[in-house]
């Protein structure tokens, strides 16, 4: 399997402060990769480097084998980006936004028309095609951004917090779209604050903290490394967590402590892995 993204010893400094410090990771073609980390961990900076918006201080980043610094023009046609903030042109319609992007990616007139219709159908927005961006809902704006990012059939899609600020229904719709894009062959690289999102969508996840990669693997592998069962015990208003490789050892631990009040045995989650590695709950972000 080829690498869609390869990051080797990446570093980035701003005014002498290292926001990325020797980051290395690899995302294989066809993966949905979740990039998790607290605010200020370096996720957005890493994405800015990968999408050619910022140059690294040291290290290399490759997309489809091409260096993002040495061959930015080549790299740009491989990826599509859905940014966290609304980056649509608000004074244009949904269709005009897609057309603008299609023109920037040099699609011919017939290809543009066909692709715009396909994508409006894909994101279920054919009826809103001629509405101004300012007149549609937040969920529709996000779906327009997804359609825009896909217009040139990118092999790799960066999604930066794709469901932030969306209601539950719109969020599920975006999840379906991500799965749909992946099943059509796009590799997906997503950052998210929602651990359930990463668990629901990602084949592999990387946890980044203070600019460094803390762990990379499938959600299942990461949970296994920590312990697939967790024991939560509450004492004086604080909850402590212990992790065990199986339910038996977790039960044994509880029995040995002879205190079952306020003790819960449950399967560990990716959020547990995240907290153990970064020392913070995602919800605190």
């Amino acid at each position, binding site marked *: 399997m080829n690498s869609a993204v390869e990051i080797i010893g990446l570093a980035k400094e701003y005014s002498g402060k290292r926001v990325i410090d020797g980051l290395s990771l690899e995302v294989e073609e066809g993966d949905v990769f979740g990039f998790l980390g607290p605010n200020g961990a370096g996720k957005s900076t890493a994405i800015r480097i990968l999408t050619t918006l910022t140059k690294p201080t040291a290290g290399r980043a490759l997309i489809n084998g091409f260096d993002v610094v040495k061959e930015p023009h080549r790299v740009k046609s491989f990826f599509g980006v859905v940014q966290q903030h*609304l*980056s649509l042109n608000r004074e244009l319609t949904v269709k005009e936004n897609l057309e603008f992007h299609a023109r*920037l990616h040099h699609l011919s007139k017939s290809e543009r028309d066909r692709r715009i219709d396909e994508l409006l159908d894909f994101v279920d927005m054919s009826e809103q095609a001629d509405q101004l961006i300012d007149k549609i809902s937040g969920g529709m704006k996000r779906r327009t951004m997804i359609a825009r990012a896909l217009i040139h059939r990118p092999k790799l899609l960066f999604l930066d917090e794709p469901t932030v600020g969306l209601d539950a229904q719109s969020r599920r719709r975006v999840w379906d779209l991500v799965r749909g894009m992946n099943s059509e062959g796009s590799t997906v690289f997503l950052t998210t604050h929602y651990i359930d999102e990463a668990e629901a969508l990602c084949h592999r996840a990387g946890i980044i903290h203070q600019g460094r990669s803390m762990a990379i693997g499938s959600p299942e592998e990461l949970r296994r490394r920590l312990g697939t069962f967790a024991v939560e015990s509450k004492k004086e208003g604080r909850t402590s967590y212990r992790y065990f490789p199986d339910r038996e050892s977790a039960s044994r631990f509880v029995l040995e402590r002879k205190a079952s009040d306020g003790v819960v045995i449950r399967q560990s989650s990716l959020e547990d892995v995240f907290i153990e590695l970064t020392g913070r709950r995602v919800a605190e972000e």
Partner: protein
Amino acid sequence: MDAYTIVWSDMMMLRRRFAKYLLTTLLSPLLYLMAFGYGLGRGISVNGTSYLDFVVPGIIALTAMTTSFNGAGTRLNTDRLFFKSFDECLMAPISSISLITGKAMIGVYRGLVSSIAFLLVAMLIAPRLDIGLLFALSLLFTCLLFSFLGVFAALLAGTHEDMATFSSLILLPMTFLGGTFFSLSQVPIALKTALYLLPLTHCSICLRAAALGDSFPWESLLAMAGFLLLFSLGSMAALKRLSV
């Protein structure tokens, strides 16, 4: 072609509110025309020309400057810092030259629309003006150089306030000192030399000479070309600095 794509998106936006744009863009030159042309300048002649005929080319230079600068610069500043939609252009497979040129052409397009609209109104008032090839060339250069100045300023600005400060410190003094409302032959030599450092001075001189049928100041057109080169190279350097 890529530069045209950038302009295309602006044209799509502008066509929806063209009447409103025209109205707002014509307001200030018409006010200048009334205040200076009819009010202050009634009965005055400059170098044998009525003040009204004298001031109209200056107001056209001023209109071209303001609308080109704002059309290119203020829009780019907002797209870059507020809407963040400029990042989408940076991530597209287009060259820096196309991107800068496209952004500047938005200013040129808007500048020409506003200046020509004002010119049509002004021709009703001052029909003696000679609108020929040299006038068109001077107007195009004016729009081009201030559009590139707008792009340069927008790429350098770190905040919206920076852009406002630039307008207050650079454009506002130029509005009144750039040979728009008075003849440079009337000012002391030291001030005259300083005023020649302002790009608008050369734009006013060229537009006025062309419109009044005076001998054309080719050295001022050359100066405009020099400013244009300076601002376009500055824009390229500022764009490069953004990705560091």
